[in-house]
């Protein structure tokens, strides 16, 4: 399986994390989450069952909304969105996400765009997947400088959603909201526990010898490289082309 690209591992892992959802929403510039959702849909349809509905924000092709930019949030508030992805300039060990900036607010030394819908969606979407390819101590910090959206809430606070997993370029973590904290579930090929520990600014639970992230089987890979990259190209042409270039380099 040396011919599986790192990003293909990510896409296939996302498809697994999404298994069972009816409706997943994906941000406008999130080709890997979108590819994961499309792969799950393709797999379900290949099995003769119904795949998830995929709403891609900002896409015309995958826009099922007709009520302006408020509809995504209304839809989530109605319980009609089962899964969503969040990134973050900083993510800490309690699942807190910072999309605003570093240093003292409001005069942040580094300012990021802002919290977008995270301060709401993180509370009401049951399966939020934290996704950030860059796995460094700069991103995964002990404590975020600004809480755009908290990982957990005190008892009594209305919360039907929250983080279930954190997927990075090096590994996959599950979020345990009872503890609360992350637990390393698996390590991607080419990485190891020591490296992940060094790259992570927060403490996390882990087995002594964590297992490797599950790799896709041949039929899944065929589906991904065929139908899914075709579909992906409609919305993310540059990303799909790049993936295909990288595959070409591997084959050569």
């Amino acid at each position, binding site marked *: 399986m040396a011919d599986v690209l790192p990003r293909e591992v990510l896409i296939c892992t996302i498809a697994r994390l999404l298994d069972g959802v009816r409706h997943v929403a994906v941000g406008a510039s999130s080709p890997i989450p979108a590819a994961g959702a499309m792969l799950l849909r393709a797999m379900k349809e290949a099995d003769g069952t119904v795949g998830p509905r995929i709403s891609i924000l900002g896409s015309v092709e995958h826009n099922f909304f007709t009520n*302006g*930019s408020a509809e995504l949030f209304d839809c989530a508030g109605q319980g009609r969105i089962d899964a969503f992805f969040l990134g973050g300039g900083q993510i800490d060990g309690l699942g807190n996400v910072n999309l605003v900036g570093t240093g003292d607010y409001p005069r942040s030394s580094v300012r990021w765009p802002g919290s977008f819908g995270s*301060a*709401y969606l993180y509370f009401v979407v049951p399966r939020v997947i934290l996704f950030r390819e860059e796995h460094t101590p700069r991103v995964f910090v002990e404590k975020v400088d600004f809480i*755009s959206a908290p990982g957990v809430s005190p008892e009594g606070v*209305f919360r039907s959603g929250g983080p279930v997993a954190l997927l990075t370029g090096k590994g996959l973590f599950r979020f345990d909201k009872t503890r609360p904290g992350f637990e390393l579930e698996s390590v991607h090929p080419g990485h190891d526990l020591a490296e992940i520990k060094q790259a992570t600014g927060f403490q996390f639970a882990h087995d002594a010898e964590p297992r490797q992230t599950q790799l896709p089987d041949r039929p899944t890979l065929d589906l991904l490289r065929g139908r899914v990259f075709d579909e992906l190209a409609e919305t993310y042409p540059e990303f799909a082309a790049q993936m295909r270039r990288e595959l070409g380099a591997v084959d050569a």
Partner: protein
Amino acid sequence: MLSEPRAMAKHIEPGMRVALPVDYAGVSMAMTRPIIEHGAGDLDLVCVPTGGLQVDQLIGAGLVRTVETSAVSLGEAGGAPRFNAAVKEGAVRLKDATCPAIHAGLVAAQKGSPFMPLRGLIGTDLLRHRDDWRVIDNPLADGGDPIVLIPAIKPDVTIFHVPMADRFGNVWIGRRRELAAMAYASHTVFVTVERIVEENLLADEMSAAGVLPALYVTAVARAPKGAWPYGLWGEYPADSAEIARYAKAARTADGFSAYMAQAQMEPA
């Protein structure tokens, strides 16, 4: 009813609260330079629900006092340079929000209500820095159910760009209904359009479904390619090369001034 961008910009007064749409909904870039030329400052911007090029340029021109927004960025072209610089210098006051809170404030104004409740938010630093938001115990629950109240957002002026309007001032917004929400909530609404059509857009049920009625529209001006370099849904795509050119130029105040001084205000 029919006007032109420069004439509309003259109605913007210092200290006004101005609502602007998200980059893909129909930004009236055609109004940006007329507003800057007119020069009314101390503006309180409300980004519905996020801001981009137009917001960055108004900040760069020194016209902005506060920015209420869920985010400001140039999308694929990266961070908004003049916004980021102003944040670092403390030159604008931030009212950091989250998208549904902006929508909730507009809906409150639309409904003539003083506030709207919104789930989420509790435990965020957004809430901690917003003294205009209020946490109450949900009066319809048995206690111990905190919920945030977002006060009504009533902009003085809303400005956006759409494909068409008719001669009566009815404006076709299609499925971009946040534009209607902004208009309902606002005192004054200025709209630029690609074209003015002859037929009454309310006369046909198919077109009427996507119309913001003239009742809410103060003035309309024709401005072909008026969203450029942003795209306009159903009309033309964004000019990402131009947005990237701006992003690069505006890294410095001088670069920004040079870019804005250029004669090219519309695509070649």
